[in-house]
């Protein structure tokens, strides 16, 4: 999924995880290096103490320096301890070395400029060592001055093992606190995003036609959004009803004169003139009816995109039962519960009303209106037990529905309106043979 499609939750989780990771890495490396520094200076101190201890026990012995076997650190005696000490002459020759240093074949190189200020790290005969050292000018008897180098070495691993141990400890604690923080954070995230989730649900309800507007209390950041949606819905509704009113008034003002003309003409004696006028008035009326009814169909996307099918079909059934009561029809409504029509309720009424009215005109005794959602489409079926429609005529009837000027008796304007709605919703219509014996009109509209 491309990043710009990520949900807010995904984004926040990702960002906070990255922040957590970066922050904890910095903390980890900072504590590690601080600890390393502190350990190094402690090591340096103890090595310095070794040198001073050596200097303290050094004795003059006939013009050379002698280190007695007293005050010895046990580690200096131990061959594998890693702590070594040397006393060298200024030319690099050995004066004294600790028993532990017999591990090494060679002597440290005094050219290395060992100091007391800094640990000098080097690889010595394959072992990583820290060194410190200091030159000392010794005044022997007879004003003989000689410079000696006191050098102490320590294996580096003494430091790294401590640091490793510390590192592991810190890592464990940071991991635990990181996990805890993630838990707390996800809770905080849910808490903060809850109003958004509520708004999302509310808007979904509006979209499904379950609610008239977005309801509930929202934090101030969301109020501009929710109130604009409500305003939009409100103005859409008002616009729609104003549009309907305007069309209604237009219909009224166009059809009243037509009705008068028709009434007047009906009172005339039968003549060619009367026939011509009657036909032309019918024609005008058909065009007005078609264009007005057609302009009520919503032309495309509106905010409220769905409506529940069952209540609308029930209204049609009740209306048809009244209008066709004379015929004693049985009009059945078989809409699966929770079926949704992906559009305006007015369009659904028009679609079902026209098809069902046609079915009522043609049927013998029974009309069944069924609807359900199937394969991602809204499906509407109208069955009747009338004479049915011959296979070869089916295509022609639907094609004629597309053209007003070629309408057929009984499948007239209504079918034209139906075809318009189906076209607007990118749906499909077909005529088949009904299980009841008559015609089956099948409409599918993608959800």
């Amino acid at each position, binding site marked *: 999924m491309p990043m710009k499609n990520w949900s807010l939750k995904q984004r926040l989780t990702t960002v906070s995880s990255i922040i957590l990771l970066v922050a904890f890495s910095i903390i980890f490396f900072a504590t590690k290096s601080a600890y390393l520094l502190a350990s190094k200076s402690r090591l340096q101190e103890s090595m310095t103490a070794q040198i001073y201890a050596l200097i303290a026990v050094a004795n003059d012995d006939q013009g050379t320096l002698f280190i007695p076997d007293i005050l010895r650190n046990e580690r200096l005696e131990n061959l594998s301890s890693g702590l070594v000490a040397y006393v060298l002459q200024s030319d690099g020759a050995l004066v004294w070395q600790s028993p532990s240093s017999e591990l090494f074949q060679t002597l440290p190189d005094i050219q290395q400029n060992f100091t007391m200020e800094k640990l000098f790290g080097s690889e010595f005969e394959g072992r990583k060592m820290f060194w410190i050292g200091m030159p000392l000018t010794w005044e022997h008897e007879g004003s003989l001055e000689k410079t000696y180098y006191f050098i102490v070495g320590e294996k580096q691993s003494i430091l790294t093992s401590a640091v490793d141990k510390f590192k592991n400890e810190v890592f464990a604690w940071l991991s635990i606190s990181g996990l805890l923080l993630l838990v707390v954070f996800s809770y905080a995230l849910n808490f903060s995003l809850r109003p958004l989730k509520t708004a999302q649900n509310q808007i979904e309800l509006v979209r499904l036609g379950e609610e008239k507007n977005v309801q509930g209390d929202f934090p101030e950041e969301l109020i501009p959004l929710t109130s604009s949606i409500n305003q939009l819905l409100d103005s859409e509704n008002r616009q729609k009803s104003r549009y309907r009113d305007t069309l209604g008034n237009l219909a009224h003002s166009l059809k009243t004169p037509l009705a008068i003309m028709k*009434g007047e003409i009906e009172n005339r004696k039968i003549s060619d003139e009367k026939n011509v006028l009657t036909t032309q008035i019918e024609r005008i009326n058909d065009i007005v*009816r078609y264009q007005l009814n057609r302009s009520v169909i919503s032309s495309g996307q509106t905010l409220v995109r769905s409506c529940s099918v069952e209540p609308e079909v029930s209204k049609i059934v009740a209306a048809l039962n009244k209008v066709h009561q004379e015929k004693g029809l049985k009009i059945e409504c078989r809409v699966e519960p929770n079926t949704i029509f992906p559009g305006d309720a007015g369009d659904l009424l028009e679609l079902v009303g026209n098809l069902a009215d046609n079915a009522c005109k043609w049927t013998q005794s029974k009309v069944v209106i069924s609807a359900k959602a199937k394969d991602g489409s809204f499906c509407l079926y109208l069955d009747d037990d009338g004479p049915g429609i011959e296979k070869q005529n089916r295509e022609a009837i639907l094609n004629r529905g597309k053209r007003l000027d070629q309408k057929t008796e009984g499948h007239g304007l209504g079918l034209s309106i139906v075809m318009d709605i189906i076209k607007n919703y990118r749906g499909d219509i077909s005529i088949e043979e009904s299980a009841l014996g008559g015609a089956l009109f099948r409409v599918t509209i993608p959800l």
Partner: protein
Amino acid sequence: MKILIVEDEELIRNNLVSSFKANGFAVESAANGEDGLFLAEEYPIDLAVVDIGLPGISGLELIAKLRESDNQLPVIILTARDTWQDKVEGLSTGADDYMAKPFQFEELLARCNALLRRTAGFASPLLKIADIELDTMAQSVRKSGLQIELTAYEYKVLEYLFLNPKKVVSKTELTEHIYEQDFDRDSNVLEVFVGRLRKKIDPEQDLKLIQTLRGQGYRLNPDYVS
């Protein structure tokens, strides 16, 4: 039968009034919703034809007010708007049928007759009681298949009795339903009509279809009315 026409467009109203009169109806008419409602509530109307787009209270409001006060007067609405949303709205408000404008008078008449029959509980346009058959479409009466010639008023009396078969119909009620409100009423004239009607539909005097209940009015013989 007395019909009420509520239509604000004078030409249409006049046309309807004369057409309904020509077809044997007693007609009351009103040009706006208020007058229409008053007539519907105060006069013995059998059927109303109401235009939806009325000045003042609209046709739908008129029907809603009638139904609110539990008046079941059959109503056909005339409407210029004929989307299903409008039809459903009109019919669910309480109208019994609708006609889209412009309409053919014959169709409106057929629907009015059908609605009157429906209200009386008959399914077919032929009402048959005993051996008398009344055709509300053709406004003709047959006895055992043979046509009987009736005057317009004689037919109106018989039709009213046929459409109220289980009811005792008083002379006043009968007068009100077959005459306009400003007609000079004389119950003696009605008695003459009924007397002539009896002779025409029952020349042998063996059927006794129309009974007189002294002080109450007329009714169809309950023996023939199931």
